[in-house]
């Protein structure tokens, strides 16, 4: 059943559930962060509309810095501004930020330990028609292996808003991952969010499988749990927006209760969220783990729905994978 303490939206299972892209949450969140702290600045690499950075520009034109198509410079100028006391949010597509400017982020932001907030938009295959060149599927892997980097993949636009505000008041570098396509808003203003904390969405007394998901896939994971329950398979769904630092206590508890774990992410199955879970459980509490993600492939053009179906990341495939894992052992 739904976890009442999560205060999820009432229409969470409705066919016409309210939807918005998580990048919208960046736009609203960074304006709020800017109001709370005059040191917040936004740097953008010629994508202010599609990153929603223009929301910040409208309110704080003097604190918005247009970098042109130059992501390496955006990261390093951001590093310098942070050294001078600013809290820079650097925004572009995840493919270029942190894809293009990885080493700049590693050296001048992370090793240098300055509070630059790297915002990667249009992550995952759900970018859609733009195709493989613009569908970033390796960013979680790239960012989570950098010492001291916090990595957050918000589940919906509302949680994205909270994550941006939280990132602004966190010391040190943060990577925030956002999507292009509109996805269900399953959390509400009342839903708790804290960096480093996972959120139980669905729970049951004797779960046979724990579904751990990150980003907007968590809504599909939730739909899966409901469908499984209807067919007599109990499960739990743990939404893990902060991939690093991992909420180890919550992950361990979920694994212990269910005894088998399915992870879901719109990212390469190698190196990403599922790998983080498998690494942790492998050392602390080995249980069978299956990872849903892209299997060593690039994306392609198509609609978000077509692509999520093709790469087996829609609710139907999550359900199939959950059932087969629940039955095997």
């Amino acid at each position, binding site marked *: 059943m739904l976890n009442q303490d999560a205060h999820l939206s009432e229409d969470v299972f409705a066919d016409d559930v309210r939807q918005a892209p998580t990048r919208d949450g960046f736009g609203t969140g960074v304006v709020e962060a800017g109001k709370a702290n005059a040191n917040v600045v936004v740097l953008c690499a010629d994508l202010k509309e599609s990153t929603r950075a223009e929301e910040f520009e409208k309110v704080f034109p003097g604190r918005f810095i247009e*970098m042109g198509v130059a992501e390496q410079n955006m990261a*390093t100028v951001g590093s*310098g*501004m942070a050294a001078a006391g600013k809290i*820079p949010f650097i925004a572009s597509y995840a493919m270029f930020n942190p894809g293009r400017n990885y*080493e700049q982020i590693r*050296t*001048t932001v992370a090793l240098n*330990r300055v509070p630059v907030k790297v915002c990667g938009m249009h992550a995952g295959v759900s970018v859609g028609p733009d195709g493989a060149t613009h569908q970033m599927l390796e960013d979680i892997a790239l960012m989570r292996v950098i010492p001291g980097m916090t990595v957050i993949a918000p589940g919906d636009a509302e949680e994205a808003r909270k994550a941006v505000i939280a990132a602004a008041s966190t010391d040190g570098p943060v990577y925030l991952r956002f999507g292009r396509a509109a996805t269900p808003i399953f959390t509400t203003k009342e839903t708790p969010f804290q960096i480093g904390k996972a959120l139980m969405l669905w729970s049951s007394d004797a779960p046979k499988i724990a579904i751990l998901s990150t980003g907007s896939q968590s809504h599909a994971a939730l739909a899966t749990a409901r469908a499984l329950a209807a067919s007599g398979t109990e499960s739990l769904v743990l939404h893990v927006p902060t991939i690093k630092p991992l909420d180890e206590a919550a992950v361990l508890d979920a694994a212990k209760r269910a005894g088998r774990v399915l992870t879901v992410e719109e990212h390469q199955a190698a190196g990403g969220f599922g790998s983080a879970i498998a690494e942790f459980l492998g050392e602390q509490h080995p249980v069978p783990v299956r990872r849903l993600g892209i299997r060593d492939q690039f994306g392609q053009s198509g609609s978000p729905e077509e692509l999520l179906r093709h790469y087996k990341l829609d609710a139907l495939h999550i359900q199939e994978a959950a059932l087969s894992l629940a039955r095997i052992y």
Partner: protein
Amino acid sequence: MALTDEQVRTLGKQAEAIRETIITMLVAAGSGHTAGPLGMADIFTAFYFHILAHDPKKPDSEERDRLILSNGHTCPVRYATMAHAGYFPVAECLTLRKFGSRLQGHPERLRLPGLETTSGPLGEGLSQAAGIAYAFRMDGKKQRVYCVMSDGEQEEGNIWEAVLFAGKNKLSNLTAVMDRNNIQIDGMTEDVMPLEPIADKYRAFNWHVLEVDGHNMNELVQAVDEAKAIYEKPTLIIAHTIPGKGVPEIEFDYRWHGKPPSKEEGKRFLKELRTMHGSVSHEYA
């Protein structure tokens, strides 16, 4: 304002002492870069002993000017100059590149107070300096931002992104100094990847450009003064230097870019420096 003869002599002596420390620390380290640091000794002396507003006892002071070293591999010159300026004991220079040392092989801001950035990967310092300069201007701060960079790293695309950005934003509080020694690891810059006409390139990107003899204290100091008077543009000072300056065996030889002197070479080079190239019969140290 021009330096007095006395000031020029004092700064010159200081630079020679820094060169000796550079040789000594590189011999002790057993690895590291020699030619660049020796060639930049005069530039760093001019900054730490004349140009910069700074206080070695308060390395975090808000009011300090910022000196960004972009080509981090030349850090022996920065470490040696900082030690001579009083940031830490000169003896600590012997820990360069050793386990547990604050003097990492490439400089890390978090490890040593007084460093402004972590650097080494080339082409990133100018952007960071531009970011600091931009933030200072936002906040109405009057401190100057300096970036010392190499000529070889002009081959990095990131540099030209920074050059565009600083030109667009007319960052007149930013002054870059290019150590134009014409060498890089694989050979002469004009063979590896020609940079000329480098001054024209910067001018075309809306920078004010000056060229000086990088071993002439007066020219260095006056160029920085001129940069302060340019209100609408960032300034690039191209400092023509001799790689390995002070040790004739090293001078102009690109093979000395990335290796340290052996113990025997170190002895010979120190004697060279301490006898003022044989003009006095006894070493003064």
